[in-house]
């Protein structure tokens, strides 16, 4: 026996709570005398309970950051200015003060021949000043979209200075390794923006950054005497395992 469409509709309406008193009474009268109707009502009610009980899927933790990074900056009400905007604001802002560490340190060390490609560690907390904004040339950028870490890393250059801009968010402690095979390149400085908690160490051919979970924006400065063509290899490790690798090529004139 097939249930009349009218009662099928009333059963569904009743389950959804979208039924008038008169319709409800009509449905009750029908169900009291129709076992097939009662079975359908019970089955559909159970189905709806099952559907309502299905847990929502959690979006990937990095997705929000990736979306925000994909949205172009617009308008005058920007409340969180970009890395470059702050860095090259005139007059130099707070960030530039930190940025100066690299330049200041390099100049002083170069003049005293203290560094070249020698290892030196624990370089956080350096301060200095920048008198003039620096014009840079964008070279390359890479985008990360992993479960543990997401964001972008960009490479710029200003004469013999190469700047790696990190704009990242992580869900865990992450170690970032930036390797450069050209041993004449050396670590030149480090600056953090809007956050703390990233430590940096440098050795011949490699800079290591250790960042805690959360949003981190920082820059690493490398000295590339003669602005030679080179490649920076990036590795991102979580719990000692590589979760992402990328390369950033630098060519003079780009």
């Amino acid at each position: 026996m097939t249930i009349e469409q009218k009662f099928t509709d009333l059963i569904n309406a009743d389950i959804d709570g979208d039924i008038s008193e008169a319709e409800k009474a009509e449905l009750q009268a029908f169900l009291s005398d129709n076992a097939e109707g009662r079975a359908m009502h019970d089955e559909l009610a159970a189905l709806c309970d099952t559907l309502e009980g299905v847990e929502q899927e959690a979006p990937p933790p990095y997705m929000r950051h990736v979306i925000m990074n994909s949205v172009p900056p617009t308008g005058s009400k920007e409340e969180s200015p970009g890395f470059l905007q702050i860095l090259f604001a005139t007059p130099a802002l707070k960030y530039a003060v930190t940025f100066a560490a690299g330049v200041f340190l390099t100049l002083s060390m170069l003049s005293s021949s203290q560094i070249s490609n020698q290892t030196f560690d624990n370089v956080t907390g350096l301060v200095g000043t920048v008198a003039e904004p620096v014009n840079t040339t964008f070279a390359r950028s890479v985008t990360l979209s992993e479960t543990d870490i997401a964001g972008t890393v960009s490479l710029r250059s200003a004469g013999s200075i190469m700047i790696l801009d990190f704009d990242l968010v992580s869900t865990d402690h992450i170690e970032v390794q930036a390797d450069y095979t050209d041993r004449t390149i050396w670590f030149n400085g480090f600056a953090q923006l809007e956050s703390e908690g990233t430590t940096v160490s440098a050795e011949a051919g490699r800079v290591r950054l250790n960042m805690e979970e959360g949003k981190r924006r920082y820059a690493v400065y490398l000295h590339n005497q003669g602005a030679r063509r080179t490649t920076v290899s990036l590795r991102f490790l979580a719990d000692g395992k590589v979760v992402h690798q990328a390369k950033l090529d630098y060519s003079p004139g780009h």
Partner: protein
Amino acid sequence: MSKTDDTKLIERCSAGDRQAFEALLAEYEKPVYNAAYRMLNNRDDARDVTQTVFLKVFQNFSQYDPSRRFFSWIYRITLNESINWLGKANRLEPLAFDAADEGKGPEQQLESARVSATVQAALMTINTDYRTVVVLKHFLGCSYVEIGEILEIPEKTVKSRLYTARQQLKDALTELGL
């Protein structure tokens, strides 16, 4: 979030306020992602569609009609993007029972995960028109009127599709042993 709250946020977004956009993103990220996932049966695709949806929203605030509710606009974009995605991937329904075999990690041992996967598998057996109303009604909690507004179809059609969809889902779930 109330319509008033959404309207204020959208006004700020239209003026280029990224913080307001991030607030909208926080509010709608999960339902949009879930709608896409239930339509597509694939988490990576759902992620990509979600990103596309929010980028389109950001780029098209000027086209948003403030007399309509924001969620009806963003859900409509989500469903259209999901259906387009299905078409592009040449994966028109039915997609068989992939979800039931998906991700056999430990968490899938849990009963709730099994039910979720089976429901998803059943969802993929019904056509996109029916799946769409089920997603809107049961996964996004929309009323008949709201579904009609989102899909731009009469309320009567919403009910008709939903009732048919439920019957088909019930049969599919029975076949799947739930």
